[in-house]
């Protein structure tokens, strides 16, 4: 092995990067951006899920537990009526609620068991976990205060509005990932294909033909949508038939949402490829476009637990609505009558239209 020849290769590589400022910026900028985002997400005074407390207890215990819960750091609490609590779970504003029945104190005294009713929204396991944790900590605190009064068992009666104890991690993540996989792959393929058109010179030929810019963009969209639909079918079939990801919703709706996402991804790919000169640069969009969305779309970290400022950002990212929609359909069995799902569909459709118009407007006929 010749040291001179090996070094020639290494030096040449570094020389090439010296002139590619954009790649350098990304190489050293992107990690800081992503790590900052992650740091802020996890340490930036994260918000906690909200749980309701319905205290119907005629004795003292309900009030004591309520006071304990209100001091909890893993949830924020809200004293409300049973009706409002039920509504809060349905509209997603509450992660769950605990109900102390009228005979709560009496029964605890008779049976030496504390048996609150816990109703969980259930579609996001981390959030449900926070609620249960806050509750058990309150009772643990209570038990230590009342030491000597004999062992009191903590036996909450937990019910889930959606999902439940039978759902595993894949059931929760599967719904989100079905959307993500299609979005991600379609985006990358479209962006690279469009740049290949530029690199091999055929775009110049197209631009010297009577083709309108919108015809090129819409043609691309239709072509890739065909591929994306086939991919969506494959992903869906594999998830449901092979992985048995939990689904209580309408398969047609899941598919429709996937197709809308695929179209949005195709259009985003075309649009962003306008800002890259080479396929190499297009690949660089992945950490900038995809990673923040994966972090902030609620796939891994529930949006309700993000710091406030990031929640705002999450709510402008299209993937957030896709993930929401998928979970609403597959875990909650939502249909198009749900206003939340209508919003998800509308946002993704709107985003797709926005980027296709932007792509057609950005595509330059002129070489210079």
């Amino acid at each position: 092995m010749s040291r001179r020849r090996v070094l020639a290769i290494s030096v040449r590589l570094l020389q090439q990067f010296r002139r590619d400022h954009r790649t350098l910026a990304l190489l050293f900028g992107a990690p800081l951006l992503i790590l900052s985002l992650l740091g802020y997400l996890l340490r930036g005074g994260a918000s906690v899920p909200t749980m309701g407390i319905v205290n119907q207890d005629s004795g003292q215990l309900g009030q004591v537990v309520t006071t304990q819960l209100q001091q909890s750091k893993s949830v924020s609490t809200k004293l409300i009526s049973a009706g409002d609590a039920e509504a809060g779970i349905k509209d997603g504003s509450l992660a769950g609620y605990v109900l102390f029945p009228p005979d709560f104190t009496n029964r605890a005294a008779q049976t030496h068991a504390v048996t609150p009713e816990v109703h969980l929204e259930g579609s996001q396991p981390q959030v449900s976990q926070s609620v249960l944790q806050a509750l058990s900590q309150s009772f643990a605190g209570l038990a230590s205060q009342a030491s000597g009064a004999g062992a009191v068992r903590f036996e909450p009666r937990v019910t889930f509005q959606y999902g439940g104890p039978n759902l595993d991690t894949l059931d929760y993540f599967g719904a989100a990932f079905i959307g993500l996989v299609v979005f991600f792959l379609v985006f990358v393929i479209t962006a690279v294909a469009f740049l290949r058109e530029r690199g091999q010179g055929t775009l110049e030929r197209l631009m010297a033909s009577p083709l309108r810019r919108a015809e090129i963009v819409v043609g691309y969209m239709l072509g890739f949508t065909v591929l994306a639909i086939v991919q969506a079918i494959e992903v869906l079939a594999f998830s449901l038939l092979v992985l048995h990801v939990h689904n209580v919703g309408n398969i047609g709706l899941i598919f429709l949402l996937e197709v809308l996402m695929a179209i949005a991804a195709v259009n985003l790919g075309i649009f962003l490829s306008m800002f890259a000169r080479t396929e190499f640069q297009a690949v660089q969009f992945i950490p900038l476009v995809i990673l923040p969305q994966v972090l902030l779309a609620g796939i891994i970290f529930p949006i309700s637990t993000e710091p406030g400022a990031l929640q705002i950002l999450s709510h402008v990212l299209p993937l957030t609505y896709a993930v929401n929609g998928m979970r609403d359909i597959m875990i909650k069995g939502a249909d198009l009558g749900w206003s939340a799902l209508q919003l998800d569909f509308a946002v993704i459709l709107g985003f797709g239209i926005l980027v296709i118009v932007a792509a057609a407007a950005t595509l330059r006929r002129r070489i210079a």
Partner: protein
Amino acid sequence: MAEMAIDVQSVTKRFGDLTALDSVTLRVPRGEVYGLLGPNGSGKTTLIRALVGLVEPDAGSVTVLGRRLPNLGVLGRVGYMTQQAALYPDLSVEENVRFFAAINGGESRVREALDFVDLWPRRASVVSTLSGGMRTRCSLACALVHGPDLLLLDEPTVGVDPQLRIQLWDRFQRMADEGTSILVSSHVMDEAERCRRLGLIRFGHLLAEGSVAELKEMAHVDRLEDAFIKLSEEKAS
């Protein structure tokens, strides 16, 4: 006056500090084979791109087949062969030609175009497996499949062996005889001699125009090559 296929009036184009075209005026009557002769970087490609609206002049006007650019409609009557054989490498010869036929409106002439460049027997070959010369021919077929009234050829014979070069020029001549106007750029002097008229271009200036004989006479030399050198020196001084 015969109607012009190309009418370029005082076109100037700058890229930053570089003046790629400096007040170029050029007229090509219909049915003529016009050769744009100049060294690399002289402005040939920029001028051809201006003729299909890919380059927007900073000053001056470009009129093609009687239509002032920008004009999308007239592009359907223009055939443009780029310097590199711009083709889809994963498609077959016929699929490439058929695609460009479809976007330019010449679906019925695919066979004719492939016969013209002798590629009909190789129509099923995938472009990425073809030799450079065959790619050039395929690229030409894509440029003329819609039967354009004006054909723009940007250095069509670069990297082409002498035998194929002669064949291609015979074809260009045949098309011109049938009424197609052709503008072809080159830096090869011997093929320039086949053009009815030549424009010598250097540093974005059109130095001189005329038939081969006229240019030699202008420079008082016997060879076109010498004429080119002498005329560009005269212009520079």
